[in-house]
């Protein structure tokens, strides 16, 4: 301030010397209470009607300072402030200090009217309008959706928004496909869609809307027309051998009826089942009975390569699916989804297993040749009523699997044939109902179902001769398993908000009755014999649970708290009439779960969680007699019911600075599981394993740490990401009757670079280096080192064509041959701009690499599996919408 005054004086002197009169008028503006007024305007003019000569605006302490150069004798001063009467006065033209007090005025300012403007409809937005995102290459809506900010379509087809799976996939507000939305997503023509809407924090149940906050988003496809008939078709062929690929998906959408039908067939390794995969989100934290197919018996399979199955899967698949929705009346929908899949797959390769036993190393080589046949019929009927005061959803699902497998193994000195029939059936009904009772909203849930698996495994020649046939060889062994499960779970719960805390108590009762019957038979020539004693099961396993659980959620400012407090009373009755064994158990358990998150600044966020849980085994981990699970594994659990008590803690910290485009996050978790059973493995000279449970308390400990960082370099148009993870697993094992501590350590590093080199070339590189180290108390085992690198180059030849090169390299230090695996694929696409037809040519496995080798480990073995890949082949396809 002082400086400016000095400056003023200098300035003033200068002006005086230059010949014109210069004066400084300064002062202070006050309101009626002698408080300073800032922002008042002070104008100086010749008289009341002439224009302004000079002006000032009062500062935060009400002061003003105006310099003017004029030869006038007197000046007209006008001081105004909005809402106050204007002060006008005449002053002398000389340096002076003024104090001006203004008084409030009720005089209103003149108004001018604005004509009300018609609000424009929201047009294309970056995030939601299809046309903004669609380019000529895009055919189906998935092509467009995956470009939208925040939306990610995972390789399996699941859609995530902001990293969380979406809750619903609506078409015109109707939920035709439930979780199997890939079918719509991959087949609705992008041209038929006007908008894709993301419904953030969407609560699909209208009744719950104001009560229960949802942090999930849903997606709605808005079509251009009221009645849309559309579809996509893809035809492809190639060699060698002769390849085909057919996909036809017609569909129709009206306001009340929606249907999507699809038929797909190929022998190119394309996975068609991904389109009918279910991505429904089951209710959070809810223990549900699994209706997934469960196989008791298996043939030895080969570990599948980690890359796209089009490069290794030898298949011959047919899929038909019909999905139909009808809106019966307002807010009541009936949905039917029926699909049938038939697939024949072939796997060829070998597995080398190196077992580390206390007395030495056992090497086992298995040349494997498998044929797998799948026959699956799935049907689902859903009735849903969703109004503002009522919600009901009943789902009935009936699935049948008629699967069979055939496997041939050559292990050098023996040739083994395995034949498996592994059908599975399930009927399941799920009801969810919301009803207001008094002022309270109560949720009723009822889950009831039945599953059945009658499976058979036959192996020639017979195995486990010592155990089963007094060391005499025999021609065939047969295992039959008949298992069935009935379950029901019924509960009532509600949600209430009390001073900011949402409390959701729930009570329920569940019952599960499992029955297991199994027999093992050996056959020599025409003479067959069922084995008795420890080789059969006739088990009834009844478990019941009464539970009371409360969930507390509190969110305020930057804090987020969540607490679950389930109390369970469980009772088990297990009885095998035939073996004359039984046990009863009842337990009262408390299994709390706690989570806190705090965003403690604009850049930092941290969270802590802790939980404690008890797990009890079911019939698959509790049967008194042996079952031959595969040709070289016999298992039984002639022990008390398994009880695991697990504690788990997790901490994470994230720093994200958008100003510098720099992100770092780290997290650590620790878990400790106390178990009452130890599993004993008895490995024979030929790798045949007998697994039994032994009653002995033991602990499993796991530590996991990971860190990630990424930085964008704007000058280079490049994003660099680095990551590291470390995990440590400690436990005890009983191998060939010797107890030992086992440590598994895994350390891995990731590097990723993505760069836009020029307008016509973009490139990305990713690399992974990982070390696996197993330490068994009595011996040291070599570390496994694996590497994985991939480099992709993308060229824009012209607006309607592109060309890409994908290359990959895999390395492991264990294999004696084939340590290095190289792959190269080329892809070219041409689009006919006018007709919108895509032509695609791909040359997969250019180097004709015929095998892929990967190495993994478990507590006592290295497993090196080699998988025969599809040969180098060329595929041409044409894709169009109709």
């Amino acid at each position, binding site marked *: 301030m002082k400086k400016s005054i000095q400056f003023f004086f200098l300035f003033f002197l200068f002006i005086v010397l230059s010949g014109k009169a210069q004066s400084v008028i300064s002062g202070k503006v006050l309101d009626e209470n002698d408080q300073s007024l*800032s*922002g008042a305007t002070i*104008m100086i003019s010749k008289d009341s009607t002439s224009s*302004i*000569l*000079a*002006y*000032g*605006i009062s500062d*935060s302490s009400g002061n003003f300072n105006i310099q003017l150069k004029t030869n006038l004798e007197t000046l007209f001063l006008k001081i*105004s*402030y*909005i809402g106050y009467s*204007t002060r006008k006065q005449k002053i002398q033209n000389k340096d002076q200090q003024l104090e001006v007090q203004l008084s409030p005025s009720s005089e209103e*300012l*003149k108004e*001018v*009217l*604005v004509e009300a403007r018609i*609000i424009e409809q*929201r047009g294309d937005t970056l995030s*939601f309008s299809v046309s903004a*995102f669609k*380019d000529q*290459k*895009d055919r189906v809506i998935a*092509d467009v959706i*995956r470009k939208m*900010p*925040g939306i*990610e379509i995972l390789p399996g087809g699941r859609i*995530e928004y*902001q*990293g969380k799976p979406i809750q619903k996939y609506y078409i015109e*507000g109707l939920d035709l496909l439930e979780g199997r939305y890939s079918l719509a997503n991959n087949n609705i023509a992008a041209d038929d869609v006007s908008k894709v*809407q993301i*419904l953030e*924090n*969407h*609560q699909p149940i209208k009744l719950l*809307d*104001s009560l229960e906050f*949802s942090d999930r988003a849903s997606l709605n496809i*808005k079509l251009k027309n009221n009645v849309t008939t559309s579809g996509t078709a893809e035809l492809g062929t190639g060699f060698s051998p002769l390849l085909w690929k057919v996909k036809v998906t017609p569909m129709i959408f009206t306001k009340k009826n929606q249907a999507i039908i699809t038929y797909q067939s190929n022998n190119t390794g394309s996975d068609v089942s991904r389109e009918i995969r279910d991505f429904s989100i089951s209710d959070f934290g809810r223990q549900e009975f699994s209706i997934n197919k469960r196989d008791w018996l298996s043939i030895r399979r080969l570990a599948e390569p980690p890359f796209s199955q089009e490069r290794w899967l030898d298949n011959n698949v047919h899929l038909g699916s019909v999905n139909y929705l009808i809106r019966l009346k307002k807010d009541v929908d009936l949905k039917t989804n029926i699909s049938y899949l038939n697939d024949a797959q072939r796997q060829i390769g070998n597995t080398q297993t190196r077992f580390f036993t206390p007395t030495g190393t056992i090497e086992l080589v298995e040349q494997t040749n498998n044929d797998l046949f799948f026959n699956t019929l799935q049907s689902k009927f859903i009735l849903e009523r969703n109004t*503002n005061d009522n919600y009901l959803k009943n789902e009935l699902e009936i699935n049948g699997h008629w699967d069979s497998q055939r496997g041939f193994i050559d292990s050098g000195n023996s040739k083994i044939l395995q034949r498996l029939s592994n059908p599975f059936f399930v009927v399941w009904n799920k009801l969810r109902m919301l009803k207001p009772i008094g002022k309270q909203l109560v949720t009723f849930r009822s889950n009831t179902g039945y599953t059945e698996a009658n499976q058979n495994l036959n192996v020639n020649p017979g195995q486990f001769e010592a155990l089963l046939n007094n060391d005499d060889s025999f021609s065939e062994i047969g295992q039959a398993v008949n298992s069935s499960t009935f379950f029901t779970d019924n509960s009532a719960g509600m949600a209430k908000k009390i001073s900011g805390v949402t409390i959701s108590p729930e009570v329920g009762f569940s019952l599960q009755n499992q029955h297991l019957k199994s027999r093992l038979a050996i056959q020599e020539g025409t003479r067959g014999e069922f084995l008795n004693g420890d080789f059969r099961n006739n088990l009834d396993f009844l478990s019941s649970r009464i539970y009371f659980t409360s969930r507390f959620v509190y969110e305020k400012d930057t804090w987020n708290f969540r607490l679950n407090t389930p109390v369970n009373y469980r009772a088990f009755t297990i009885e095998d009439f035939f073996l004359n064994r039984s046990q009863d158990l009842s337990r009262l358990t408390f299994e709390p779960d706690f989570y806190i998150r705090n965003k*403690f*600044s*604009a850049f*930092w966020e941290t969270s802590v969680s802790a939980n404690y849980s008890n797990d009890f085994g079911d019939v698959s981990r509790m049967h008194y007699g042996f079952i031959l699970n595969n040709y070289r594994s016999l298992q039984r659990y002639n022990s008390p019911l398994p009880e695991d008590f697990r504690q788990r803690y997790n901490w994470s910290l994230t720093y*994200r600075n*958008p*100003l510098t485009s720099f992100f770092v996050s780290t997290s650590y978790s620790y878990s400790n599981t106390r178990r009452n059973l130890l599993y004993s493995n008895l490995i024979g000279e030929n790798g045949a394993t007998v697994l039994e449970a032994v009653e002995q308390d033991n602990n499993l400990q796991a530590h996991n740490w990971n860190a990630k960082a990424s930085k*964008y370099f704007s000058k280079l*148009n490049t*994003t660099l990401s680095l990551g590291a993870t470390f995990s440590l697993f400690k436990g005890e094992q009983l191998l060939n009757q010797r107890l030992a501590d086992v440590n598994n350590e895994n350390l891995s590093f990731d590097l990723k670079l993505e760069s*836009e080199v020029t307008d016509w070339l*973009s490139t990305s590189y990713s690399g992974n280096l990982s070390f696996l180290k197993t330490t068994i108390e009595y011996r040291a085992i070599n570390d496994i080192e694996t590497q994985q690198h991939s480099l992709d180059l*993308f060229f*824009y030849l012209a607006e309607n064509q*592109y060309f890409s090169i994908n290359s990959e390299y895999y390395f492991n230090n264990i294999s004696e041959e084939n340590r290095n695996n190289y792959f190269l694929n080329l892809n070219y696409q041409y689009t006919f701009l006018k007709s919108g037809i895509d032509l695609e040519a791909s040359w997969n496995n250019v180097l004709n690499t015929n095998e892929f080798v990967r190495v993994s480990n478990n507590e006592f073995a290295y497993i090196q599996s080699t998988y025969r890949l599809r040969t180098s082949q060329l595929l041409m396809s044409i894709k169009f919408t109709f």
Partner: protein
Amino acid sequence: MKNIYWILFIGSISNLSFGQESVTDNFKYKATYELTWQIDSTDTESIQHETMVLFIEDQISRFSSEGHHISDSIQHVYKNRERTPQSFSEMRSKMPETEFKYYIDKNLASREQNFKEKIVKDYYKYAEDLSGMEWEILQDTGKIAGFSVQKAKASFAGRNYSAWFSLEIPIPDGPYKFNGLPGLILKIADEEEYYVFELIGFKSLKNQIFNTESGEEYLETGKNKFREIKKEYEGNPFAALERGGITFGFEPGQKEKMMKEHKLTLQKQNNPIELEEKR
């Protein structure tokens, strides 16, 4: 010793985020301007119009596009409503389109103005001194929307402007960042008339208006840094989104193709209101 710096660092960040001033919703006056601008200096076909609003309280004011103000108000209302696909599309259909998604909050008492804009999911702001404009009052007078006005001249951010202000509204404020005349600026245009703001309405507010101030923490940055971030975003929105923790599942080449188209659009947007200052 290191720890101390660490704590200081964290402390300064939290200060930064809690130090934001709150704009009240008790605005007394609303001035409405029509903005006419030409985004591509080489193409007169690119002239566009948009309605802008200036809300004025005693010491503070908030300037934004009308569309942006309405969109934010609608979102505030729908925040507490039921979220069904229908209500969502209803909301989105009510939300007007706007080309300008910033707010300019001026504080006459502290002589400071804050430019606030959300990019992807981060809220940025930068502060500038209000006294930066040096006006030369001219003798030309006239009438705009019924108010007597006088002309003044100043240059700002690489352009020379002529403004018409009215002593009848003794508020030293104006559209965009323009301020500092002894009356409200009713019209302002640069020499080339690439950007023209003209008053189309002025009224006293009888009822409260929505406080569109978001509860979010603003990342405080400098003007140059903000322009850099914005430029980066406009240059490659996908990279910016990815850096914001939003991931894309592009098919190979999809992104690159979109970028190509995007660059063409960018070439046509060559005429921002504030030109790069030549130093």
